[in-house]
């Protein structure tokens, strides 16, 4: 046994396995011409209501489906099933975030080619999901008006990792004395140039503009899809 330890170079990404699966998923989504959108937020910011409204409004014209991550219950899937879109629950147990392999497993039995939009609702958590690529085309981070305008500054990593910010529950903005300008300033500070939508899933205020954005993104992604 030699006394001196030997230093060997490795140079490997710790999340390599996740990234490999995520890349494969992204490729599958691209080939199938489906736009995959993931949602992250803190618990209670309105992800499920937002998603239910999104599914309901897109349904008449598009084929939509959703995967919902949750620690223990399938309540969210039950709520989303009211939209009549295919919905599958991913129960993560004690795991505080979704990983690409969980998404891959959950897609078993679904034909992506028959879908236009796939939504992936992450576990309510603004910390852990930021490290895991799920193969999504767009990551939305949600911030409700009742949460405080400084959320982006408190969780810069997840806001920086997202592509789009959605300010939810706009119908409560006045009651919550929500300072929209400050919220937008903070979002732009941690992710300059990020697209921001402000809307209410309850009253549908602002939903139209956001849906048009989704449709334009899908058109762009499906025009690059392999035939």
């Amino acid at each position, binding site marked *: 046994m030699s006394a001196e330890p030997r230093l060997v*170079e490795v140079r490997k990404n710790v999340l390599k396995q996740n990234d490999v699966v995520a890349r494969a998923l992204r490729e599958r989504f691209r080939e199938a011409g489906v736009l995959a959108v993931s949602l992250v937020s803190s618990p209670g910011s309105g992800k499920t209501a937002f998603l239910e409204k999104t599914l309901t409004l897109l349904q008449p014209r598009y084929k939509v489906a959703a995967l919902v991550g949750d620690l223990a219950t399938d309540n969210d899937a039950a709520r989303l099933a009211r939209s009549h879109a295919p919905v599958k629950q991913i129960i993560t147990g004690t795991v505080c975030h979704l990983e690409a392999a969980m998404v891959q497993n959950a897609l078993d039995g679904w034909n992506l080619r028959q879908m236009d939009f796939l939504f992936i609702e992450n576990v309510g958590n603004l910390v852990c999901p930021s490290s895991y690529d799920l193969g999504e085309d767009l990551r939305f981070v949600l911030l409700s008006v009742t949460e405080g305008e400084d959320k982006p500054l408190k969780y810069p990593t997840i806001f*920086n990792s997202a592509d789009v910010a959605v300010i939810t529950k706009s119908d409560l903005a006045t009651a919550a004395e929500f300072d929209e300008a400050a919220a937008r300033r903070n979002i732009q500070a941690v992710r300059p140039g990020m697209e921001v939508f402000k809307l209410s899933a309850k009253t549908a205020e602002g939903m139209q503009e956001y849906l048009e954005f989704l449709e334009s993104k899908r058109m762009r992604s499906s025009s690059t899809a392999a035939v």
Partner: protein
Amino acid sequence: MHELSIAMSIVEMAQEEAERRGSAQVQAVHLRLGLLSGVVKEALLSSYEMACEATCLQGSRLLIEEVPVEVFCPKCEVPRLVNSIQWFCCPECGTATPKVLRGKELEVVALEIRE
């Protein structure tokens, strides 16, 4: 708190690499950790100890090199280090800088092993 699962991935990776090189014992793991990786250094260090138990890494050290966040300033046209991850702008000219060049690393760079 996902640091324990990250720590377990590090241990697993180190074990594989050590075995591949015919080593029975890992004394240290060198890790590069970006400030934007979403992983908290202190939580990772305490999780690491737990993850090493009953493996060939037991008693080993996790040596973390923190990687600052570097962005590309479109105005100065050079890479710059941001002063804070709450403010993605060029520290020299104040221009908003969304383009991140580094700071997301979560990478095992080297191992100290014994034959």
